C-alpha cells in the first residue's frame, strides 16, 4: 500500500482505478495504442508506431497495419462505432460517442488490451513513487480547474495523467509514451521545468510519501 499526504493533508492510499470515463479510455487507446485516430498523413504513410506499445503490451501485433486492421474488424463486429468509417484521421469521435451500448461492447471486446493499457498507466504512477529523484517524488501534482492533476513519467517513457482525488484515488485522463528518440532524462527535465513553473505560479501541490508498498514494478 502506498500512502501519501496530498498538500500537507492526512495520509491517504494512492489508488489508480481506471480512466475518468469509458470515452476517454477508448479515445486514448485507439489514438495511442491502435493508431486509429488523429494520425497525420506522414504517420499514415510511415505505418510506424512511434509509441512502440507492442513493447509493453505483448498481446499487440508488432506490425502496425495488421494491428489496425484487427482493431477495425473488431469494432465493426461491435457495431455502433464511428471509428470504423472515420479511422484513422478522425480525432474526437470517441469523446463525442453517444452510444453507451457500443461503448460497453467495445470495452468488452478490447478488455484485455484496455486492462494492459490501464496497468501501464498505473505502473508509471507507482514507478514514480518508488524511484524518487534527489529532489523528491517524481510525481508532478498541480491544481487545475479546482482539481488536482497528477502526471507521471516512468523509465519506459510512459506518461500517465490523471485527476488525483483528495482520498488518493487517481482517475486517468490520458496515457501515452514519449517518442523513442527522446530519453527518459530529457523527458524528465521537461517535467522538472513544468514543476518549477507550477511552483512559481503557486499551483504546485506537494506530495509526501508516508508509506510505500513492496511490489514488483514493471518499469
Amino acid at each position: 500500500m502506498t500512502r501519501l499526504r496530498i498538500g500537507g493533508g492526512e495520509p491517504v492510499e494512492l489508488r489508480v482505478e481506471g480512466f475518468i470515463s469509458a470515452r476517454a479510455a477508448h479515445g486514448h487507446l485507439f489514438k495511442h495504442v491502435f493508431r486509429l485516430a488523429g494520425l497525420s498523413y506522414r504517420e499514415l504513410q510511415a505505418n510506424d508506431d512511434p509509441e512502440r506499445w507492442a513493447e509493453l503490451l505483448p498481446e499487440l501485433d508488432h506490425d502496425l497495419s495488421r494491428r489496425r486492421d484487427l482493431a477495425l474488424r473488431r469494432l465493426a463486429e461491435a457495431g455502433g462505432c464511428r471509428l470504423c468509417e472515420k479511422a484513422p484521421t478522425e480525432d474526437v469521435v470517441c469523446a463525442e460517442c453517444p452510444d453507451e451500448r457500443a461503448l460497453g461492447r467495445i470495452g468488452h471486446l478490447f478488455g484485455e488490451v484496455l486492462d494492459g493499457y490501464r496497468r501501464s498507466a498505473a505502473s508509471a504512477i507507482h514507478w514514480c513513487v518508488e524511484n524518487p529523484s534527489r529532489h523528491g517524488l517524481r510525481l508532478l501534482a498541480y491544481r487545475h480547474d479546482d482539481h488536482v492533476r497528477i502526471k507521471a513519467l516512468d523509465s519506459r517513457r510512459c506518461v500517465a495523467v490523471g485527476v488525483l482525488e483528495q482520498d488518493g484515488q487517481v482517475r486517468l485522463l490520458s496515457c501515452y509514451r514519449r517518442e523513442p528518440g527522446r530519453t527518459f532524462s530529457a523527458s524528465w527535465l521537461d517535467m522538472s521545468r513544468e514543476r518549477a513553473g507550477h511552483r512559481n505560479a503557486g499551483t504546485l501541490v506537494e506530495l509526501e510519501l508516508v508509506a510505500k508498498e513492496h511490489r514488483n514494478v514493471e518499469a
Partner: protein
Amino acid sequence: MWKPDDALLDEAADQLADALSRVQAAEGDKLRTAALEALEAAGTLVACGARAKAEELLGGADAIGLPEKTRRALLEAARAVCPDELDDAAAEIAELAPELALVSEADRAALEERVASALQLRDSIELVLEGARAAFSNPALPPELDASLESFDELVRPEVWRTLALGERRAARALWMAPAYRARFWWWSKGCDLPADSLDSLAIAARVLAVFPEARGHFEQLIDAERTLESGRPEAARSSALCEERPLAEVIPLFARIRRSHPQRQAQALAAATEETWLVAEAKSAVVTADDEMLYVDYREGCAPAHRRPPTLEVEGQPPLPGGKSAAACGSFEWSLGAPQFRQPKARLRIPVESGEEIVELG
C-alpha cells in the same frame, strides 16, 4: 519576485554533464540525441538566468574546453534541430485547439494534454537553440531552420488564444524561466495571466453587445485601456526590449501607470466605472489618489495654505497644469487623466504649503 527553481537548476546541470559525457562515447542517432539533450539542458540553464553555469559546463567560450568530437556533434545537432514532427505538431495544435472549447470538461482534459504535449516540442527546439547560442558565439544556424520555425509559428499563432483553456498550465510553462526569456515562448506566455475560463467571459461580452449595441463604444474603450496597460506591463516591456531595445520609461504613459497602480484594476475595469479611488502617492501635506478618470490631491487636515494657490502638475516641455477645485471637498484638487500631460511617462506635482511647496514625483 521571480527566482530560479533550485531543483530545476540541479536537474539541468546534471543532465548537461551527463549528456556531454554520452556524446563523447556515442555514435549515429545516439550521438545526435545526446547532443540535443546537452543543448536543451544548457538552454534550460540559460533561460533560468544561469548562463555562466551553462557556459562553464560547456567548456567556456565557443565550447573550447570540450573535445573536438563533442563540439562538432553539438554544432551539427543544433543545425539540424527541427524534426519532421514539428509540422505534425503544428497541424495537431491547429486541429485540436478549436475543439478545446467544444468538448465536455472530462474530455477536454485529455485534449489539453495533447495540445500541451505538441507545444512542448516547440519548447525543446527553442531551448536547444538557446543552448547552441550559449555554447558558440556564432553557431551559424541554417536559414531553413528559421523557415521551419516560421511555418510552425504561422500555423499556431492564430490558434493560441484558444489554448487559454489550459489556464494555469500555460502560466506554469512560462514561469519556470526568467521574465526576460518568456516572450520568446509566446505560445505559453502570451496572456498567461488570463484565467482558464476567459473564453466564457468573451461569450458573455458578445451577448451583452448583442443585446445592448450601445455598449460597443464602452467596450472599445475598455479594449483600448487594456492595450495601453498591456504595452506598459513590465514583463512585456522587458521581453520586447530583448527584440526592440525599447527602454521601459518610454513605453508607459503616466495615466497607464496610475491606473495600473490600483491593485484590483482589472476587476474594476470589467465592472465599469465605480467611485472607488486608490492611493497613488503620499506627501507630508497631502495624499494623491486616483480613479479611472481623475487624479486627486487632498490636503491633510490643517495643511492647506491660507493663499489657496492650487497644486500644479508639471511635465517637461509643457506649461504647468493647475489642479481644478474639486466640488467634493474643500482642500481637494483634481486633474483629468485624459490631459496630454498624462501621456508622458513622468510628471511632477508641486503642492503649495504655508512654508513653500512640497514636490511629489509621479511615474
